[in-house]
């Protein structure tokens, strides 16, 4: 099967900023397609990196550097970090409005992403896409809830016809189960047995509407109605998540049957920028359950050191990006 989309920016060292500051060599190899072992420190470093990246964006937003809006994944960073090593280069990934963590974990390219969000030269989509519309290789994001689920079914059907053992994975939120497109897609995926994986990041809220006001029944029963395998992940421990999900994902590759994964997670920050209607006490309670507080096997000193290094890396990234010219839309025809 041919890939219609050429890679726009595989060069990790495109700029003035040294990606080794976050990743170390393991992660660079991982980006090149080598799914070697990631140490707990590698995982922790990447999760912290995503969090500090998002916080920097919120700061840049306050300072007026971001045009439009931005949805951070603060609290949910471990979801893409735990999943990405289970994915292969030939897999399709469809992301959504809350996609910075998905992109960073897939490509380790904070520079391309930050330039994109700030509209600077070096942007992965020339500043045209912005936070919610990113394409690179087989990674696509869009800002319309539920739109990418049937698209992922089509991509999965294409993969099936090509005989490749790849999958098409799409991230959606709990609120997106209100869209009819999700059910049309689940029906076709199950009917045709295509390798579709829906990862639902269930943070219990959609913009301002809590899940109990949005959803009757459950995600599990909806998957069951379509005869689709369902897995729920109720904790944030990366190694366990990987061992729980690697078998399920391998099952999709082997059988070509679809899969729904529900990740019980929490959105610690506002929906986009300062629009949080939840009780302060609820947020304090969530913060006490944050993965950052619960990481095992890394000493306090190491954590502090990693965080310090990451903050330093982010500072130099921001400085580098802000020094860039405004992007130009070269692809405009």
């Amino acid at each position, binding site marked *: 099967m041919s890939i*219609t*989309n050429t890679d726009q920016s595989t060069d990790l060292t495109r700029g003035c900023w040294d990606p080794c500051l976050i990743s170390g060599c393991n992660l660079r190899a991982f980006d090149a397609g080598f799914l070697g072992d990631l140490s707990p420190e590698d995982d922790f470093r990447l999760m912290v990196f995503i969090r500090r990246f998002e916080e920097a964006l919120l700061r840049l937003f306050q300072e007026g550097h971001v045009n439009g809006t931005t949805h951070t994944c603060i609290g949910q960073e471990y979801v893409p970090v735990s999943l990405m090593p289970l994915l292969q280069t030939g897999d399709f990934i469809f992301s959504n409005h809350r996609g910075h963590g998905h992109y960073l974990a897939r490509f380790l390219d904070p520079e391309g992403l930050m330039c994109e969000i700030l509209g600077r030269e070096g942007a992965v989509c020339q*500043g*045209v896409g912005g936070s919610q519309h990113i*394409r690179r290789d087989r990674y696509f994001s869009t800002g319309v809830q539920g739109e990418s689920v049937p*698209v992922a079914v*089509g991509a999965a059907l*294409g993969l099936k016809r090509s005989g490749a053992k790849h999958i098409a994975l799409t991230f959606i939120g709990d609120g997106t189960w209100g869209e009819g497109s999700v059910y*049309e897609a689940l029906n076709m995926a199950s009917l045709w047995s295509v390798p579709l994986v829906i990862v639902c990041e269930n943070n219990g809220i959609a913009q301002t509407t809590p899940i109990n006001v949005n959803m009757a029944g459950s995600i599990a029963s909806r998957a069951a109605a379509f005869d689709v395998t369902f897995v729920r992940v109720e904790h944030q421990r990366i190694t366990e998540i990987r061992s729980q999900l690697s078998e399920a994902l391998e099952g999709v590759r082997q059988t070509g049957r679809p899969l729904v994964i529900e990740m019980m997670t929490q959105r610690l920050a506002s929906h986009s920028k300062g629009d949080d209607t939840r009780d302060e006490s609820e947020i304090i309670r969530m913060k006490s359950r944050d993965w950052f507080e619960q990481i095992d096997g890394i000493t306090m000193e190491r954590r502090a050191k990693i965080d310090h290094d990451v903050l330093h890396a982010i500072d130099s990234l921001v400085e580098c990006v802000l020094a860039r010219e405004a992007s130009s839309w070269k692809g405009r025809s």
Partner: protein
Amino acid sequence: MERVVTALNSALRSLMEADPSVYLIGEDILDPYGGAFKVSRGLSTAFPERVVSTPISEGGLLGVANGLVLSGQKVFAELMFGDFTFLAMDQIVNFAAKSVSMYGDRMEFPLIVRCPVGGRRGYGATHSQTIAKHFIGVPNLPLYELSPVHDSALMMPQIFQRGEPAVIFENKILYAHRQYESDQIDDLYSRRCLDDLGEVVMLETGEKPDAVLIAAGGMVPSCLEAGRRLMLEAEIAVDIVVPYQLYPFPVASLASVMGAEPILAIVEEGTAGGTWGSEVAAALYAKYWGQLQSRILNIHSEDSIIPSARHLEDQMLVSSDNIVRAIADAL
């Protein structure tokens, strides 16, 4: 005599034969039924892997079509009635059309949405609309119309080659209509191309025209009839320009037509309000203002839903009578 539906069916067949990446997806398109209007008859037997029949999920099937495009395929998506494109609007406008440019670099997107449109079959309001006007002006979404004076087998590969998603509107009354293979259309009209690609066709009587009609494929039968009557009843010579592409309208190809005709009229089955014809007129005014002989006439159906009963349809849909009257009045 070949019918338009047969010509369209063999065009699809030859495209699928020539290119193993061509898919057809839609509802009820499998044999032996072969689609609500029989356009896909025989294709699922010939290409079982590439003809995908879906549940009644217009948005979903367009999504699947889009995903197939991302995986390297060229896709025809058939919607059973044009009115149902509204259920698939998100995938057509927000995903397919926007993907061409919203990611910075241009992305090729070989998708063709095909849908039957138009009245005169008595199907009533939800199955009879001429919907092109709702798609005009979407960036990277060119619009086309099936035509009995164009060869679909030549036209459709050109659309794929442009690399942008496209919609082809197919007026239902054409399916059973004769496909004009020879350049001699009948004893009065002959065909000539106005452009290199053969997309803009001129049907002419050979006389110096008193009026020129611009009409897409679905209006060709009514325009030919109106032209014949005007000639026989009033010795008014009418030429007919038939573009395959509705939008963007190929204004430049009309250069040779402009300036010679006293009356220029745009004819369409679409109802009043935000019409295709007003878009075409605006484009012609902008380019040919100095050469126009008079105000451009817009002939279209009335501002109404499409009723079911034959006599009620006749009252509001454009017909050869309307065209004859409008041209005679203008002269």
